[in-house]
């Protein structure tokens, strides 16, 4: 009976039913069979109004939308180009650095390809980079930066772990610290590849005048990462406070100082960003209910017993976890994957002695690659649509980047200190 229900729900999810409805249905069926009053669903959804950290989600999302609506991407590209353009493969590194920073602040991937790719792709082509290299680079960069603060998926992982309340208490700040070195590793490996594969590329001379002009143009935006990251890492701001500071700062700079977003456009931007927030929050609300049921029914314990009966050591488990997450990342967007899988995986991972902070970094690093893993990684389709190239060409062009980042993910997975060293020094 249970199997039939699970299969039916899975089938309708794969057919494209809204995920929150599928999750809510699974929770309701579970509660119903435990003979609980279904008004418990409302109690679970109302928990959305009991978590102070959730304030960060609408605020960061809105700030991200404002940034991508303004000309901030152009200024960001100009400034990184002035600073890094003199190196071999410099423009490629510009693309990587700019995308990572932008994704960290806008969180939801896909936005980066659309906002920055439109600037970087023509620039790369004009500078003589090969088409496939440029396409692969932009598509890959679309999810780079997920591991850097204040990225929304990182925050969401922390929220889910805190809600579960198992293992050691974990703070979002620890996650922010843990993501730095693994994120840098990915950046460095991709930069190295860009330099190596474009050895013969001509470069532009470093130009003081252009650098100064670019810095001056972006003078109002340059302090933002320093204020937000400095505030978070120094412990001066809580995450939700950092979100409020970011949104106020961005609002003042883009709307009143640069005047790039007219006031009459604000309702549209708010509406578009809050649709995404609503879509994320109903999934989170539904998953609070389903998680409660899953834990009540001791499913993670059963899952662990089952897995540990077949897999004895931690490393085999980690390999299978990597494969599973990679596969998951191609099918599910990062938010749904987090709310659905973390409650199941975390207890199992803790059983194998994996640190929750480390698990979070492994999870997100895999998801990041999943965004452009053939055949169904979401960013492949976004890039294919945006740059008007067949998806099969994108499969080929992202392949070298896929292997490089997969190599990084393996390092991140099997070298826990890379993630845990920084938070451990706090």
């Amino acid at each position, binding site marked *: 009976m249970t199997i039939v229900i699970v299969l039916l729900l899975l089938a*309708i*999810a*794969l*057919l*494209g*039913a*809204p*995920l*929150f*409805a599928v999750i*809510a*249905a699974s929770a*309701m069926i579970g509660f119903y069979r435990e003979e609980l*009053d*279904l*008004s418990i*669903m*409302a*109690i679970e*959804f*109302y928990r*959305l*109004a*009991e*978590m*102070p950290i*959730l*304030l960060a*989600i*609408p*605020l960061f999302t*809105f700030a991200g939308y404002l940034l991508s609506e303004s000309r901030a991407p152009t200024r960001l590209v100009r400034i990184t180009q002035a600073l890094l353009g003199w190196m071999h493969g410099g423009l490629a590194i510009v693309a990587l650095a700019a995308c990572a920073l932008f994704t960290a602040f806008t969180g939801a991937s896909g936005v980066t390809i659309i906002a920055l790719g439109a600037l970087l792709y023509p620039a790369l082509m004009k500078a003589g980079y090969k088409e496939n290299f440029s396409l692969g680079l932009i598509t890959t960069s679309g999810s780079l930066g997920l591991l850097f603060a204040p990225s929304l998926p990182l925050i969401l992982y922390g929220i889910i772990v805190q809600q579960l309340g198992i293992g050691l208490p974990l703070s979002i700040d620890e996650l922010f610290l843990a993501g730095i070195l693994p994120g840098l590793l990915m950046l460095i490996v991709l930069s190295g590849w860009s330099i190596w594969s474009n050895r013969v590329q001509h470069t532009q001379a470093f130009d003081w005048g252009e650098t100064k002009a670019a810095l001056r143009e972006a003078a109002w935006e340059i302090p933002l990462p320093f204020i937000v990251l400095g505030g978070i890492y120094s412990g001066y*701001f809580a995450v*939700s*406070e950092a*979100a*409020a*500071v970011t*949104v*106020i700062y961005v*609002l003042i700079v883009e709307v009143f100082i640069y005047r790039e977003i007219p006031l009459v456009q*604000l*309702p549209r931007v*708010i*509406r578009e960003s*809050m*649709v*995404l*927030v*609503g*879509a994320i*929050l*109903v*999934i989170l*609300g539904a998953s609070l209910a389903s998680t409660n049921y899953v834990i009540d029914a001791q499913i993670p314990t059963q899952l662990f017993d089952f897995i540990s009966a077949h897999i004895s050591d931690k490393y085999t488990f980690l390999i299978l976890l990597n494969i599973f997450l990679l596969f998951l990342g191609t*099918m*599910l*967007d990062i*938010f*749904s994957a987090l709310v659905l899988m973390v409650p199941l995986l975390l207890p199992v991972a803790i059983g194998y002695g994996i640190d929750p902070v480390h698990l979070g970094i492994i999870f997100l690093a895999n998801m990041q690659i999943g965004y452009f893993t053939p055949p169904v990684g979401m960013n492949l389709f976004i890039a294919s649509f945006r740059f008007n190239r067949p998806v099969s060409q994108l499969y080929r062009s992202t392949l070298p980047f896929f292997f490089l980042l997969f190599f990084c993910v393996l390092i991140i997975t099997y070298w826990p200190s890379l993630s845990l060293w920084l938070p451990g020094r706090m």
Partner: protein
Amino acid sequence: MRRLLNSVRYIENGLLVLILIAMIGLAGSQIMLRNLFDSGIGWGDPILRVLVLWIGMLGAMIATQQDKHIRIDLLSRYLSPTWRDRAARLNNLFATVVCSLLAWHSGRFVYFEWQDGNTLVNNIPIWVAEFVLPFGFAVMALHFALLMLQGKHEEGT
């Protein structure tokens, strides 16, 4: 009908803008108060948290109307247009049923809370904050029912 939809849109936009600005203003003043005067508004934080729920539900209602909920769009790519249409109707029927159930049960929940008379802060009863749940799910059920009658998902989610 068109004029009705337009005015609904105005109301939705107005509410979104109002709630978001209230959130930003309230969060901003809490930070100022904490850092400058080492104090804060007592009712500020609970209200902020409720506003998150409200703006989330409002966003979800609009996401429903625009068919922008997050879904796994895996199989429908390989279906013929006729079957894609049927799948979309089935999905929306399913979502209509789920949202109706959620609306009904959260409505009962709000009714219990109204009877209990618990308060959120000061004299504001907590059911006022919770009322957004049955209301939101009812509106979403309605939108899903309309989508079901229309068939086919809109492109690009």
